[in-house]
């Protein structure tokens, strides 16, 4: 579905943002993109959807260069949630979500209903997005992208920090929704700072260093092992299996730690 081969990107002024990242995603495969602030995660996401053309290397969606896809073709292959959740106009939440199906109106209502129910957006549909909280806006953005790929068959969903403002309950609902999409054949590329969320979601992980180069890539359990995370972030990590599942966190010197 997605094939990134040795992808680099530098801003027009020459500042490098991404240095030689590679990643392959098959239909239904789930990948996490992890790394410090400014390590090129968002740039990689924008290269993957074809919004940025790599300065070197290849980025392909379904075998075609991502940046060269036609409008309709791109809409059928990839959906994207930006980290900003910024809306330039006071559309209703319903209208924003329906925009995901602008080019594929067939069965749109069923797809919209399904994602709205899973993200508990039913009560917010007629509200103007400008009146929503940050977490609610993120849910609207995610619902729009999820509705777009809901029944698209083989497609890619790129979510850049889709849960950063969500409460724990809705983060859990998001995880469920993403797993369901994956079962439906949608490949996922998710940039996240919530490492527990990333580990629970992803089979594959790409860990970035702050200079934009890849620190490790492969099966999530190895690529996100505490030693590898330490290399990328420069702090100690612990990974614990609890009765609630896997937890990944920094080794704290915070008050209250024993």
């Amino acid at each position, binding site marked *: 579905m997605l094939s990134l081969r040795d992808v680099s990107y530098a801003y027009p002024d020459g500042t490098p943002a991404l240095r030689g990242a590679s990643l392959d995603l098959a239909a239904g495969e789930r990948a996490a993109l992890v790394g410090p602030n400014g390590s090129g995660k968002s740039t990689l996401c*924008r290269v993957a959807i074809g919004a940025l053309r790599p300065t070197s290397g290849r980025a392909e969606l379904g075998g075609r260069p991502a940046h060269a896809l036609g*409008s309709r073709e791109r809409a059928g292959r990839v*959906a994207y949630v*930006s980290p900003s959740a910024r809306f*330039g106009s*006071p559309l209703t939440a319903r209208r924003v979500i329906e925009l995901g199906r602008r080019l594929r109106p067939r069965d749109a209502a069923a797809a919209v209903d399904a994602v709205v129910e899973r993200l508990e957006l039913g009560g917010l549909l007629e509200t103007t997005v400008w009146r929503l909280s940050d977490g609610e806006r993120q849910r609207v953005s995610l619902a729009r992208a999820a509705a777009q790929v809901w029944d698209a068959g083989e497609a890619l969903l790129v979510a850049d920090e889709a849960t950063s403002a969500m409460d724990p309950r809705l983060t859990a609902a998001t995880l469920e929704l993403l797993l369901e999409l994956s079962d439906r054949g949608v490949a996922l590329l998710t940039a996240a700072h919530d490492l527990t969320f990333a580990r629970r979601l992803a089979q594959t992980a790409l860990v970035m260093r702050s200079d934009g180069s890849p620190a490790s890539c492969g099966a999530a359990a190895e690529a996100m092992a505490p030693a590898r995370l330490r290399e990328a972030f420069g702090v100690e990590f612990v990974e614990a299996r609890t009765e609630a599942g896997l937890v990944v966190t920094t080794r704290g010197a915070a008050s209250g730690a024993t």
Partner: protein
Amino acid sequence: MSGERGRSAAALWALLAATLVAGGLRLMSGPGELAPPRDGVELELRGMRAASALVVGGSLAAAGAMLQALTQNPLASPALLGTTSGAGLAVMVWIFVVTQATGSPPRAGPPVWAPLVGALGSLGVVLALAGRGGFGDLLRLILTGVVVGMIAAAGSMLVQHLLPDRGLALGARWFLGDLSDDVTLGLWAWAAGALAVGLVVGWWLGPAVDAVTLDEGEALTMGTPVAWVRAALFFLAGLLTAGAVSLAGPIGFIGLLGPHLARRIVGAEHRRLILGSALAGATLLTLADAGVRLIDLGAGRVPVGVVTAVAGGPALLWLLRRRAW
């Protein structure tokens, strides 16, 4: 959903009715009295003025809705971005050149291209200066527009000063904006044609315009040719502003108030918003012009641009205070 859309459609019809009522009221408005026109000449005079007000108000407000979508900025409007002043300056330069070349000021209205070049030129300058790295900075865009507008307005005054009689004959039209009685049918037809083109293309592009008000990458993955839609909004807003300015000069605030009023009535979806803005703007300006005619201050007719500024300025301040968008 059908209920919501149905309400929105009914609201559009109600706006259209309000526009027609405003037009009728203007036909009934004589100097200081509300009375039907006495003869054919008076009917023609009032009719042309009403038709001008409808087209100018509609064009400015539709352009405002498009500029707000293009810049993702609820305060954008042809006047605040300096587009009307830019078009006005181009017209003044044209008047100056014709006067220099022929020895007398032009009798007919400006040619189509003059305000168009001015509108697109000033809008292009503002977007280029303020748009580096996106239009996210609301304040920078508006400030850039205000400064460019001030420079263009000062340029217009300079040109006026250089005219033989210091341009006194031009009156307030090219500075504050005024509906004039000497609009020719040809000039009106081009502005009305520009408005028609703007509304038809705006209706057709509406859903894509909704999409480009989201993040650029998001719009792209929803299958929206972002660059094309933005280029279309830029060009249409310039065209509509040029049409309005060639009829009435740089009238202010209608382009800001029209879209805000329409958003409250028909909602924010651009297919309806652009049309609704045009109707709201046409209604507002026609009512303002009827007011100018009916209320006799004993000092001749006040330019309608003064009225829109005096009424529109406080309305903008209220919007800023309430953040009511």
